[in-house]
Every structure is written in C-alpha cells, then in structure tokens.
C-alpha cells in the first residue's frame, strides 16, 4: 500500500539533533512551557508590585513563583461531595497538552522546528478549541455552584473569541501562501506582519487573553465567583490548574511572536534569542493589561466580539489579501 521507501515527506533533513524526534521534542517544548510559566509569574508579581507601588525585593520576585508552587504542592488535595473525578483530573492535562501542541507548531529558532506541520494554524485552532472543552470540564467536574457558573461563562467567552482568533491567523497566512507557521515566519523576512497587518496583533492578543482567561477577560476564574472554576480545587490540583492556564498564555505569546513579530527574524542576536525576547514582550503586555483594565461584563463582550471584532478581523483578512495581490 503506502510506498515503503522511508522518504521523509516533509523535507526535514535528519541533522544531528533533529528536534522532531520525540524525546528532544518533548524536552524542548516542556522547557519552553515551564520557562514561560515561570516568566509569566515573575512578570505578574513585578507588574502587581509596580502598579500597587510596593517595594520589590529581588529575592522574593525570583523565588516567589517557586515557593508558591512548593506550597501548593505541599498542601493536601481536598475534594467535594460527589465530583466527576476523572474529568476533574483530565481538564488541566487537556489544557497543558493543547498548549504544548501549540508551542510545538511554532519554529522556535532557524533550524529548530519541533512539529512544523503543513497546516500549523489549523492545528493551533483545533488545540484552542479543545482548551474550551478543558475549562468547561474543569468547571463542571466539581459539582459546585460557582465553578459551574465559571465554566459556563468561559463557554460563552470561547464561542465569541474563536472566530477572530482564527481569522487573524488566516490573514497572516495569506502572504505566506501556506498554513504552516514556519512558512508564515519565512514570509516575514523583510516586513513583519505587525507592520503589514496592523489590526492583526491587537485582535490576536484580545482573543488570546480570552483564551487564557486572563486579565479583563478573566471570566472563568474571577474574584466575583470566589475563584470560579478553581474555587473547589486545592493543593496539587490547584497548582496544576494555575500552571495549565499559564501554559496557555505562553502558547498565545509564542504563537503571537511567531506569526506577527517576525518569529526568529532579527538583525543582530541569534534567532532563538529574538524569539524569547518577543515572547517575553508579549507576555509583559498581556500581564500588564491584566493589572490595568477591569474585568469586562461578559454580555457586553459577546456583543462587541460578534459585532465589532469579527468584522474587524474580516477587514484585516481582506486588506492583507488585497495587499498580497
């Protein structure tokens, strides 16, 4: 049936350490996610201290996330009366897995492409659709009122931001003539997409913030729901859920950096370093907005998303399409 010549269809030559081999791939993606989550926590603490005008001690800033994680890991894992135990455990795993696959599709440096598939942004869209499933399951599983309300809020939010998120990536794929994230990065050789398609990055960041339920779009785990979907999770479950949400935020930042800020293109520094810098910049923007803008009312955001964001994303698609001709 299939031709038995072991030809590597996608043309990735077998260099010494091929990042698309399973083991190095897992280690690389794991490292990127954990480092990103750590950077998010550090940026979050720094932004909080800055906005609150509190003195920032370096030791506490650097070690803070590790200590909090150690505390949560040390605490006992309590439960509710009749939860759905399997889906409660599955939800953070699903979120972390989808964030991992999103990071895997992005070429992190010139030669380093873990899983640069030909339909990269479609894989990103599928992963982000499953993130909605993960957060809804996390809210549903604990059989408690406030997590349930948090879970349903997130479904409404997810159904609203999914369209602009995908359309903006399609707009970036037009000049690249391919859906692969690597090709999109290649197409930004001289001119970054953030310049060519000014509407792209802001819309992507708004949708990304909704995806990670962060800052003004932090609907699923809001303070008005006593922690929302994570109101009943404690100890290890709480730690893993916080990590998974930060992984999703890192996935959004990495994809944003690759698709809109030229990926690893950059004048002086090495490709990988540019990628890290751009990701950190986007993470700082996402975290900073989280501390400046109040949580939006969901009913208003749904109307704005459908009536304003989707038309804007379509305009972005057609304008960049016209420019490509």
């Amino acid at each position: 049936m299939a031709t038995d010549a072991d030809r590597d269809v996608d043309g990735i030559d077998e260099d010494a350490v091929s990042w698309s081999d399973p083991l190095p791939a897992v280690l690389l993606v794991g490292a990127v996610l954990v480092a990103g989550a750590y950077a998010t926590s550090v940026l979050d603490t720094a932004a909080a201290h800055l906005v609150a005008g509190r003195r920032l001690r370096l030791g506490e800033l650097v070690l803070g996330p590790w200590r909090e994680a150690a505390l949560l890991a040390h605490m006992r894992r309590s439960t509710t009366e009749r939860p759905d135990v399997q889906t409660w455990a599955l939800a953070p795993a699903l979120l972390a897995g989808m964030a991992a696959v999103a990071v895997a599709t992005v070429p992190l440096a010139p030669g380093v492409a873990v899983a640069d598939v030909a339909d990269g942004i479609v894989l990103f869209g599928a992963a982000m659709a499953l993130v909605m499933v993960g957060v809804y399951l996390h809210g549903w599983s604990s059989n408690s009122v406030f997590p349930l309300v948090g879970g349903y809020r997130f479904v409404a939010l997810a159904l609203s931001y999914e369209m602009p998120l995908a359309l903006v990536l399609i707009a970036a794929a037009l000049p690249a003539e391919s859906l692969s994230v690597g090709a999109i990065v290649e197409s930004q050789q001289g001119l970054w997409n953030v310049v060519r398609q000014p509407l792209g990055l802001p819309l992507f960041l708004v949708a990304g913030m909704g995806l990670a339920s962060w800052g003004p779009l932090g609907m699923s785990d809001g303070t008005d729901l006593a922690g929302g979907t994570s109101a009943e999770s404690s100890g290890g479950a709480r730690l893993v859920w916080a990590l998974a949400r930060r992984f999703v935020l890192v996935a959004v930042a990495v994809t944003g950096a690759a698709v809109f800020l030229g990926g690893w293109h950059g004048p002086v520094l090495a490709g990988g370093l540019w990628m890290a810098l751009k990701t950190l910049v986007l993470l700082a923007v996402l975290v900073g907005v989280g501390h400046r803008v109040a949580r939006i009312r969901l009913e208003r955001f749904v109307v704005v998303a459908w009536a304003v964001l989707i038309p804007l994303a379509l305009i972005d698609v057609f304008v960049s399409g016209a420019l490509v001709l």
Partner: protein
Amino acid sequence: MSRPELAGVAMWILGGSSVVAAWRVFRTDSMVRAAYWLLASFVAVGMVMVLLQARFLGLVLVLMMAGEMTIMAAFMVMFMMNPAGLNPMSMVHQHTTAKVAGVVAFAGLAFVGVAADFPDRPVDAASEPTAELGEELLGDSMLIFETAGVTLLATMIGAIAIAGKRGRFGNAQEGSAPPPVDPDAPAGPDARPSPMHGGHGGMHH
C-alpha cells in the same frame, strides 16, 4: 519499525478507539461524558484522516467538533433531568428493533467494504491536499462553495427564528397571529383576534 507499519498500527488503534468511544456514548449515564465520548470518537477519526494524508480535513474536523460537542453537552445539560448521571440513565425505547437495525446496517456496510474490490489508487504523498481543495473550491466547485454559504445563512436565520423567544410576530408561546381577514387591519402581535385554535395552541388552555 518503519513509518508505514507504524502508520498501519496507529490506524488500527485509532479506528478501534473511535468505535469504542462511539459505543461508550450510549452506555454512560452522565450527559457531559456522553458528549465528550462522542468528541473522543471524532478526534480519533480526525487522527485517522491525518494518517491518510487528508491532514487539513482531520484538523478541521477536530476544530469543528470541539465547539459543537461542548454546545451539545451544554444543551443536554440544559434540557435533560439527571444531567450528571447520578441516577442510572437509560431512556430508550424500541430497544430490540434499534439493536437489530444497528447490526444489520453494520453487517451490510461491512460486507460491502470487505467484499467489493476497490481500485488501488493511493493518493501520492507529495501532493498538497489543502491547496488542491482550495483550487477545487475556487475553480470547478465554486457554485457548491457559494451555495454552502447561502445554506449557512439560511441555517443562521432559521435557527435564530425558531429558538428565539421574542420574535417580531409575538412571543413564541403565544402562537403567531394569523393574518387578519381584511388586508388593511394592522397585522402583527397586537392584531390578536379571539383566542384562536390550532397553531401552537399548546400554551393557551
């Protein structure tokens, strides 16, 4: 183990898991689990499609079905009693006929699948399926592409008209007002003759 054998084994596993997931859909008590077993079956089928070089279709199937199954779960939880399966949930009727019909359908199709010898023309691996689909959509089947658009528009309008509570012609429960006899009388919800018969009717008595 070279790539094609690995793909073959993977196809066995994914095919089997999609059938098991589909079987679990009607066996679980919890509605949310039923919806997500169906999603698992779709994801397995999507991965099989990816193995068959139809990469774009597999991924898009997963993208579509994730949203659809969550909405399905939300609707099931909204309408059905005992949504989380705390009590045993078995709301079935005409069970034996259903089983027989299922087995007959399976046997018939499986027989055709195995017995018929389909021509062996594998898709060549170096082709770009997504690009070909794009050319197809914009070239020969452009008409199908646009009619699909119109169908989706009709679906949107139809779904919202049926599901909505307050339509332009009066609320859903109060039944739509039949057109008045003399044409110049004001139509619409305020032109309500005596309680009429038929129509939605249900909520009036």
